[in-house]
């Protein structure tokens, strides 16, 4: 084996070169997804039935009052787009953490009942306890953690297949709880039902955005901090223990993902399938490798673009975003099952 200066055959150089290619691929992917997200964001904010020009956009942000446009932008278009990004990041990264650490593409928080646990708890807090704002977020977190722990205890610590089965059952039970609570609600508001069963970005208020942003500023760096353990846990619990990453790390990572899911649900409801599709889509774009950043970006794109389609696809009708993500997510789930990839290693 040559060790001359020109020789790229030194083993260390072979290793360096081989490490570079997937990293470069990932960097391109992150840039590409960021551009796509920016495009979707701009479209959501400026386009639609009422088009806002770029100069007007900055004038309004600067405090100018343009009749119609200012109200539409500041109380509808902009908050919806921003919340879409935040919720998408929360759902996308939470889904990828679940799927990769449990090594099963079906084990995403919206499939295994975590989202609906948060939703049921939030509806209980609204209908029975009359809570709102931060207290509502906390109620959603409590519900999500309770369901996650219950599912984990019933399913046992090993075997993500059992976890999926138990989780799907729990999700159905939580849907029933939400329905029951609505029958007891004083005002049976259709929009409320859509929000807490399907997920929607309609009627977002700025305080909701600030609350979610505040939590994400803490949780996303925490997730980044533990990202390397997540990579090790993908190798399975035995290899991970051998490399010094204990099972407790799995629980910590899943807890972070449960928190992200619960906060997203508290802000926008259990938007169907965003957590579930973000992981596999980002992985397919990343040469089959799991990427948390990619999943977060895909989640955000799905939310923002989905909300745009929901709002304008059918003239005169504005769907909640969950209807659109559900409509696209369901065939995707079927495809995943038909292709035999679900239940296999993730």
């Amino acid at each position, binding site marked *: 084996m040559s060790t001359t200066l020109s020789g790229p055959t030194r*083993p*260390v150089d072979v*290793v360096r070169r081989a490490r570079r290619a997937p990293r470069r691929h990932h960097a391109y992917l992150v840039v590409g997804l960021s551009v796509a997200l920016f495009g979707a964001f701009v479209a959501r904010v400026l386009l639609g039935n009422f088009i806002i020009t770029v100069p007007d956009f900055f004038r309004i942000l600067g405090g100018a009052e343009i009749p119609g446009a200012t109200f539409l932008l500041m109380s509808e278009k902009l908050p919806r787009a921003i919340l879409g990004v935040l919720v998408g990041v929360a759902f996308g990264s939470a889904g990828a953490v679940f799927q990769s650490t449990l090594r099963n593409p079906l084990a995403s928080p919206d499939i295994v009942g975590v989202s609906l646990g948060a939703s049921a708890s939030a509806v209980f807090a609204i209908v029975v306890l009359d809570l709102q704002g931060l207290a509502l977020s906390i109620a959603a977190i409590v519900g999500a953690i309770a369901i996650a722990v219950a599912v984990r205890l019933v399913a046992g610590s090993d075997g993500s297949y059992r976890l999926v089965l138990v989780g799907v059952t729990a999700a159905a039970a939580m849907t029933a709880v939400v329905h029951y609570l609505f029958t007891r609600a004083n005002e049976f508001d259709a929009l409320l039902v859509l929000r807490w069963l399907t997920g929607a970005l309609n009627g977002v208020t700025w305080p909701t955005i600030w609350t979610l942003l505040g939590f994400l500023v803490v949780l996303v760096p925490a997730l980044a901090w533990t990202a390397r353990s997540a990579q090790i846990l*993908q*190798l399975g619990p*035995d*290899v991970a*223990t051998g*490399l010094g990453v204990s099972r407790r790390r799995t629980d910590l990572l899943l807890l972070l993902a449960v928190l992200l899911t619960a906060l997203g649900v508290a802000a926008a409801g259990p938007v169907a399938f965003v957590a579930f599709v973000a992981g596999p889509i980002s992985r397919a774009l990343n*040469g089959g490798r799991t990427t948390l950043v990619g999943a977060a970006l895909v989640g955000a794109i799905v939310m923002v673009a989905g909300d745009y389609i929901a709002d304008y696809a059918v003239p005169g009708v504005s769907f909640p975003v969950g209807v659109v993500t559900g409509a696209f997510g369901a065939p995707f789930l079927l495809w995943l099952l038909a292709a035999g990839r679900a239940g296999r290693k993730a």
Partner: protein
Amino acid sequence: MRLAAESVSLGYGAEPVVDEVSLEIPDGLTTVIVGANGCGKSTLLRGMARLLKPISGQVVLDGKAVHKQPTRAVAKTLGLMPQSPVAPEGITVVDLVGRGRQPHRNALQRWSAEDDAAVAEALELTDTLDLADRVVDELSGGQRQRVWVAMALAQQTDLLLLDEPTTFLDVAHQVDLLDLLHGLRETRGTTVVMVLHDLNLAARYADHLIAMSGGKVAATGTPAEVVTADRVEQVFGLECQVIHDPVSGTPLVVPIGRHHRPSAHPHAQGA
């Protein structure tokens, strides 16, 4: 002795699979654990690798109970290759082998030249350098097994535990892999402990052999001491002759089987 079991009992439910076993792993040598299916050999290895918490007794590593030490600190000393590990989809060989560096890096540390060197050395030792940029899923069974060994080597531990590393390999690849592990003992002085199914390969590659039966240690010692016709019948329930391996001089087990039993043979146990 850096690694030892002190009357350790291990199991998955109420009944212990490994029953109050005490043994010592000689440093710098290759120890092979053999025994019939269900004798507790893999369970014992899992207990030594801290994958299973003992019901009673303890596994001692460097003078302290392995379960009471931080798992990350143990990972710097003790490497592990579990039975048939599954690689994440799409992962490349260098990336998988690089994950063996985990115990040597903290959360903020960037990948270093030292890490590159460790991965390169592991790939060279396992003869997988030319596979560096390939996707693990697409490799053959023998190549994949070598890559997993490379990951454990990149961990640069003094002790290496392997649970049936030759499963699913054809005989040529089994010999290749065992040669590779044997070479480690020569070049790095690594203490290797492995569970093997094949008694003849175990006898050939072990310096120290542990035979298990019914959750207990039936015999320990050099292959020549442990592998005798009587013991094989007792541990494996196999009637056999033991001859000298013409290549290595180690004991070679030749099963007799029902059809070759002399008709006048006194034993008539079905096996």
